């Protein structure tokens, strides 16, 4: 079975055979993957080299893989979805609305933008207090503030939309 893995701005085709034999492009590997805790921790033998990795699955085929102090964010697509993705990206540019979500529960201490503010990628849009520290929540990319969904002093939950950018 062939999959496409996107990581580090590269795409690798991974062929998974029936017996733990795996190919990345033309490079063959023997891979043995075992769960240690039934959840997130895996022991991997890749061509007999032993590794331990922690895996955090996300949405849409995303896997965050932690290995020796490094984090690899890998998105896996099968052949069909890879083709669909190509068609879609040709049809639409990267536009639309983007919610800026609270990465953790906290208290809104300031909203340094207004509706209509043009923000740069990385610009702070909400100041959230959690664990007694003020954390700047930044715009994931450039855009215009369309809606502000929170006010100063409001407690918010994790993943709650704070601001909508367009």
């Amino acid at each position: 079975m062939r999959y496409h893995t996107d990581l580090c701005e590269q795409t690798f085709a991974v062929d998974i055979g029936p017996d733990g034999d795996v190919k990345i492009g033309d490079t063959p590997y023997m891979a043995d993957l075992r769960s240690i805790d039934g959840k997130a921790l895996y022991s991997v033998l890749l061509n007999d080299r032993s590794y331990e990795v922690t895996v955090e699955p996300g949405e849409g085929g995303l896997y965050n893989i932690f290995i020796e102090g490094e984090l690899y964010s890998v998105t896996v697509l099968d052949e069909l979805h890879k083709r669909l993705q190509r068609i879609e990206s040709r049809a639409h540019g990267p536009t639309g609305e983007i919610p800026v979500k609270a990465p953790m529960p906290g208290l809104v201490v300031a909203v340094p933008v207004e509706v209509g503010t043009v923000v740069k990628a990385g610009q702070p849009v909400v100041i959230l207090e959690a664990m007694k520290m003020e954390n700047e929540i930044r715009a994931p990319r450039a855009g215009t503030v369309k809606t502000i969904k929170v006010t100063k002093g409001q407690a918010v939950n994790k993943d709650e939309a704070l601001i909508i950018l367009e």
Partner: protein
Amino acid sequence: MFKKVLVANRGEIAVRILRACHERGLATVAVYSEADRTALHVRSADEAYYIGPAPSRESYLRIDKIIDVAKKTKATAIHPGYGFLAENAGFARACAEAGLVFIGPPPEAMVAMGDKVIARQTVKAAGVPVVPGTEEGISDEQALGAANKIGFPLLIKAAAGGGGKGMRVVRDPDELPRSLGAARREAMGAFGDDRIYLEKLVENARHIEFQILADSQGNTIHLGERECSIQRRHQKLIEEAPSVALNEELRLKMGELAVKAAQAVGYVNAGTIEFLLDQNNNFYFLEMNTRLQVEHPVTEMVTGIDIVKEQLRIAAGRKLRYTQEDVKINGHAIECRITSEDPFNNFLPSSGRVTALTDPTGPGVRVESGVYEGMEVSLYYDPLLAKLLVWGETRAEAILRMRRALNEYRIIGVHTSIPIQFQIMNSPSFIGGQFDTTFLEKRFTPSSIGDGQYMHLAAVVAAMLFHERRQHATTRIMTTASQGPSPWKIAGRRGAMR
């Protein structure tokens, strides 16, 4: 000596203090908030009492409730740990009024060092150099005026502060108003006091601190220095002892002045004198922490002195067991503060259930931990989960050992600082001892993927898990499949037989 000690704290430091008490045969009392019924300190203590809801101002900062528990349980001494009430002179006084021994300095010494202006004047008079700055509690207009005199870059600091809370670096005069607002809000939230002051920022400085022990009979010694320059937003991330920046002569000079600074306020018990050391070996008194420090075990590992036990002895009125000549620095120790913050996402606090936990072990490793498998990490308190310490004969051995130990550490369920500390242990400037307090901002770029040596491994793991999940989805109807060995186990066995 008192027989029963109440520990007015939580997390790893409460556990550390409970251990010292238990080793000395003292009975212990823990207090806990609603969020902490099953926390490690509650489980480790002989007795435990509920003192209020999760927010610390309704529980761990409630002087009245904590003193009530002490009276009720007939505890005769209170250890405040660090943070919370540790540097609150009102608490120390309340203990004294209730006839309880406060395991820490006398309230007068705490007040003298807690008021930054008095502290600076006092130590300056004792011959200790200080950093130029303003009085505390100045208005925004006064700050704007004073800033030009001090010059940029400068620091805004909370008068009631500590631990980097309410502190801001200002490089550009235009940033000052915004930073003043942020610093005041943070100080108000953390200490209930939004008074601030300004201080010149000594650039490319190292943060060097001296551990002090003083008994009530007038004996004051230091246990050498700790290097605490690896900081992020003025929160220490890694500490070590001894510092590569000090030679014997400088150590002697700084140590003597640290002792003088402590004596100048009549200090008793364990405390820390913080200095900034610039590249030309000029050093300035920064402040005194009138409490046990987070990083005290670094000193314990190179001196062999149990600082918490000494605190208990000193509080009981005993004489110090050591003279300055007895203190010998042996080998090298490093500490990593393991916090529940995501280094790959701007260090945002992370919460959740710790689903799996394996502490590193083996030669030269010490773990001071407040977590256990199954514990819920909340966002109510400090993100410090545990401290990982290593000892080595040399700094090089200690670094290699820390790398090894960090690599063994498994905390699953919350994001932790471990990856970044692992990367720092591999950083040439850290290994070479070439760093200052701006290391994390300037000389080190946290990289999620380093040189990308594990790209193929990551791609294979992700594809195999995706494949497995899909196979499960399509064969869900065959329920027996889930009871047998996983297809990957079979594949692995087949592979091994080839």
